């Protein structure tokens, strides 16, 4: 536990100190929220959606923020590899699993904070959370998304030599995950032959879970979302830990 806490502490210190990263990664979500939320609110009508399109995409944007921050946090261990700090941790008498879990929890924490900031912005835009109960459900899903995708980032970073592949990962892995997730559109509105796609995307379950928590309605049963996401999280942490164990420097 001590070791996980130590690694977590370092991650959080670094996160809280890099103001530019914190503000920079808020840029796109806030932009989406304002432009799409206000811009499309009067045009788009979603059935059974009292809070309008703005209300509909808020959970989507929260997940987006958590997703991007966590993947980035995970991939950051490439910097540690390049700047040599990873050696310092790998040569210590601690197991790699502990290091990996510390990194994952650290990244997820940073992602959770980013998500909270979006929720605060949303409250200012008029979001009403139905109950305190619902808020905690949303937090639970945010944590699950954060853990899963930080672990995914670590898995990717373990196989990468440097940051050159980062754009590739963003464009061909992370954006599709976000785009297909139903963050911006109701998944049932897709033509029937495409409906399976969002269901293959793990983030869909996260978005739906957060939507259930923050708005009280969702297209997917919350228990299903929860089970699928927990499964995905366990899978990602396992894969991440496995690949991280094989890092050689």
């Amino acid at each position, binding site marked *: 536990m001590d070791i996980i806490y130590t690694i977590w502490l370092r991650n959080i210190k670094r996160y809280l100190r890099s103001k530019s990263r914190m503000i920079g990664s808020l840029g796109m979500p806030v932009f989406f929220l304002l432009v799409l939320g206000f811009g499309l609110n009067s045009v788009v009508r979603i059935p059974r959606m009292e809070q309008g399109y703005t209300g509909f995409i808020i959970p989507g944007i929260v997940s987006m923020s958590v997703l991007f921050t966590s993947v980035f946090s995970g991939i950051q261990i490439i910097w540690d590899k390049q700047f*040599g700090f990873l*050696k310092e941790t790998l*040569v210590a008498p601690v197991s790699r699993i502990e290091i990996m879990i510390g990194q994952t929890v650290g990244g997820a924490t940073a992602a959770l904070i980013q998500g909270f900031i979006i929720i605060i912005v949303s409250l200012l835009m008029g979001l009403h959370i139905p109950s305190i109960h619902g808020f905690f459900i949303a937090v639970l899903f945010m944590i699950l998304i954060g853990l899963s995708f930080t672990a995914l980032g670590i898995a990717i970073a373990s196989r990468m030599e440097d940051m050159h592949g980062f754009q590739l990962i963003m464009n061909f892995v992370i954006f599709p995950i976000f785009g297909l997730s139903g963050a911006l559109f109701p998944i049932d509105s897709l033509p029937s032959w495409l409906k399976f796609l969002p269901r293959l995307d793990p983030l869909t379950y996260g978005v739906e879970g957060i939507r259930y928590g923050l708005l009280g309605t969702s297209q997917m049963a919350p228990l299903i979302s929860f089970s699928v996401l927990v499964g995905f999280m366990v899978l990602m942490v396992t894969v991440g830990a496995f690949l991280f164990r094989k890092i050689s420097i």
Partner: protein
Amino acid sequence: MEAIQVEKLTKKYNELIAVDAVSFTIEKGEIFGLLGPNGAGKTTIISMLSTLLKPTSGTASVNQFSILENQDAVRKSIGIVFQDQSLDEELTAYENMDFHGRLYRIPKDNRHNKIIELLKLVGLTERKDGFVKTFSGGMRRRLEMARGLLHEPKVMFLDEPTLGLDPQTRNHLWQYIEKLNKEKEITIILTTHYMDEADRLCSKVAIIDKGKIIAMDTPEKLKEEIGADVVTIASSDIDELQSKLELLSWVKRIEKHDGLITINLQNAEKRIAEIVHLSANHGIAINSISIHKPTLEDVFLNFTGRTIREEEADHKDRMRMIRRARRR
């Protein structure tokens, strides 16, 4: 008692043999130098001894613990300063130390005092709350040394500790290393390609070339073997000069390198007139001539027939091969 025992340690990357069946023993309290050009395999040896890299074959023990079977015990016994920096630049000096202390599970009340004590030892007390990104190269090295000492290791690995530092800082660092060795009774194993560094610091030196140890002894003994003096001659016709000098009975050894001739001999002061005379008789022009006491550089030349600088030129090709082999 031996601090480190290495037996036929070998590391292969596909066809390339980075470390070739190396064996040596380091006694407790020694400062042991692994001396050789870049790419000779020094860092690979250190990586294997510190359990970061698995040997292809052979074994070693550090502080009596096997690097193959008892990795955690080895890790607790060693402190290490890597060739490349391994600090977190976004943290302060104190925080870097604290992180290390927690990783090595040093109890809280003890941790703070030790950090303060060690920062004082390396002269960084005033900068303890400064961010590492504002530190100079020498300060970073000193901080890394202090950090490596925090968990009271029995053996300290220093991989090229003064690489890229200015002469004054190097001198300071050498003093710190000697102080550590004496005051804390820590066995130190350092790698370097600076001959003067090995000469100044080490009680024993192993000269490594292309993954093999080619000579191992105290610096004094290694230099004695070469002979009393070294004469270096620059000439426009070194081949001709070499063939003439080779015939002389008092020439112990003669090497050609970098367009120079190096001769090992006794009483160079007396012989130098003979050399000049001989070359004048044969009409060979001498551009310059110098006498010096043997250094470890001459020892390296003696054993390999090349200077360390010539070696460095090959080094880039070799590194490229290693990298290619690793990628596969």
